[in-house]
């Protein structure tokens, strides 16, 4: 008894945001859904988009669910497991763990709480009660590449990237292929900052790329520093994760945004109906998981129309961003004409296409 109480106490101490966990309602039990966020919600970014998804879920299902969240849960150490376990113990029947680093803690808790269902974002390990889900970010990137190719005058696109991992490489290649499909002279310069979040470094990297002639910059990091830096220097930029137009009202052309709401609604409905099954979901433009944000007025109508046409083709499956012929940096053919890359090859992408100036290792 004593031990139990002490470990419960410890678990609640581990939650600086313990107050955010709502108490179980006594009357007409709604279905309890939990969310774990890796960062504070803020007003833009990865976690913010998951919070929008949670709000969409609550709006869609109303009193049938309660959706609680715990924010700022570190991926390292034992905190994540403790927080997930606490949510499971508190009667949450479906728990969304929204960062890659929660993969092992999620599986561990899933094993000891077989009646609770879990969905883990961006992971690759599943279990009978653990689903995985992620988005085809590269489809949105491809569309921004089309715009970038049309807008650049110097034919240099600067790309501030976090780490040379497949998810980042996919975006860089998609942008390059799209930009060169409308403007074959484009070069994409890549700078790795080796961090997901350091506004100072992200900004310094963007400044460097601009000083080297880039007149369009984009980023695959977590702050809006690149968009704000581009606004000050007067060069075009694209946002990522969230709509970032307000960080660069004059120069931010559009953003690649993640929309998780529909997935959360569908999964939760299945769980309530008892038809939930462990699945792997990799949604893109078609399912609405990836969408472009509002366009800047600076984007010409013809380009908007071109993007709309490409969007329709990707959604209908007639255009695959990674369709051949694709050569790598050394000029070797990676994808033959008429072929296109399968999901496995995309997920493990570890080479740059022709037109990228950067090194992977």
């Amino acid at each position, binding site marked *: 008894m004593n031990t139990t109480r002490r470990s419960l106490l410890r678990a609640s101490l581990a939650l600086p945001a313990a107050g955010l966990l709502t108490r179980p309602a006594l009357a007409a039990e709604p279905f309890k859904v939990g969310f774990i966020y890796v960062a504070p919600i*803020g007003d833009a970014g990865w976690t913010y988009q998951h919070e929008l998804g949670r709000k969409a879920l609550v709006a869609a299902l109303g009193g049938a669910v309660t959706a609680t969240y715990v924010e700022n849960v570190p991926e390292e150490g034992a905190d994540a497991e403790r927080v997930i376990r606490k949510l499971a113990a508190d009667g949450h029947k479906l728990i969304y763990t929204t960062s890659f680093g929660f993969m092992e803690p999620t599986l561990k808790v899933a094993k000891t709480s077989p009646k609770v269902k879990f969905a883990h974002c961006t992971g690759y390990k599943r279990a009978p009660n653990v689903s995985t889900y992620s988005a085809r970010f590269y489809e949105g990137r491809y569309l921004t590449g089309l715009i970038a190719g049309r807008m650049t005058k110097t034919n240099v696109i600067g790309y501030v990237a976090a780490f040379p991992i497949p998810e980042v490489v996919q975006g860089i290649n998609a942008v390059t292929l799209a930009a060169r499909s409308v403007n074959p002279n484009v070069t994409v310069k890549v700078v*790795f900052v080796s961090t997901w979040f350091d506004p100072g470094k992200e900004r310094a990297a963007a400044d460097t790329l601009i000083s080297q002639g880039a007149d369009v910059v984009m980023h695959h990091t977590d702050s809006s520093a690149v968009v704000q830096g581009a606004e000050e220097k007067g060069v075009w930029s694209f946002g990522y994760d969230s709509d970032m137009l307000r*960080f660069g009202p004059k120069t931010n052309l559009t953003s690649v945004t993640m929309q998780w709401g529909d997935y959360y609604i569908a999964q939760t409905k299945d769980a309530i109906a008892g038809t939930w099954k462990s699945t792997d979901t990799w949604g893109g433009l078609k399912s609405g998981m990836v969408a472009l944000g509002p366009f800047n007025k600076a984007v010409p109508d013809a380009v908007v129309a071109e993007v709309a046409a490409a969007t329709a083709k990707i959604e209908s499956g007639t255009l695959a961003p990674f369709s051949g012929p694709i050569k790598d940096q050394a000029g070797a053919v990676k994808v033959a004409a008429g072929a296109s890359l399968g999901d496995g090859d995309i997920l493990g992408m570890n080479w740059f296409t022709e037109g990228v100036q950067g090194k992977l290792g």
Partner: protein
Amino acid sequence: MHELEIAVAIVVATLRAATPLMLAGFGELVTERSGVLNLGVEGMMLMGASVGFIGTVATGSPIVGLVLAMLAGAALALVFAVLTLSLMANQVATGLALTIFGVGFSALIGVSWVGTPLQGLSTDIWPSLSTQAPIVQQLMLIDPLVWLAAILPFVAQRFLYRSRAGLVLRAVGESHDVAHALGYSVLRIRYFAVLFGGAMSGLAGAYLSLAYSPMWSENMVAGRGWIALALVVFSTWKPLWLALGSLLFGFVTIAQFQAEGLGLDLSPHLLAMLPYIATIIVLVLISRDATRLKLNAPAALGRPFHATA
């Protein structure tokens, strides 16, 4: 012409990257020279970054913002001083707590300012910045805080080794008992040193949120406080070495970006390691000579002082 542009860009970017490290580093160097180890630099920088940003946006004046940032850093340092100097709490533990507190508190007060746009300090001083030629634009990015950081090593050198006050400060850090016996008020001098360190950390944080990447975002200092602390040891508590260390650290970071942008055939992993490798190499070179390190470290560093007579 193009080479000249890139060279100027590298020099300016290096100076800008080194500025926050120098400002915070000098504050900590003076603090440590008085015999107090304050590990709360990161927290004080974050307080300076958020208060400086809020103050500038709210009043429209970066000068007000910078002053408020220094006061915020000093206020946090005062908490540290009361706990460790008057109440003789453990300095290492208190300093760590100060950082944790600063991370959380700056995020709390700054939460509604995330995403507020602000023009950089240079654009504020030179409204015509974005219309100038690239090289002029680069030179205009050298704002007054960069100048301050550039002259600081010489001022600090003079203060520490050529002024009476500097001699007293060093005496307190070397042997507080002797300084006390000579009639100096050890605690008062240490209070001043800690407050100065806090104000400089606050200024360094405000440099990040007002000039380096003008924005407020939680935890935006991203470890620079810890690097400043390491640089103080790296410099063996000498101002000119500290300046050199900061410039070196700034340079390798910027050189990595430039090299990648120019498409030099170098591994990004290797380039990302460079600043840290450089720091380790210099630390090894310095600590090779144990007596020299011992001679330079303030002998009373981290030791609490209690006046017995």
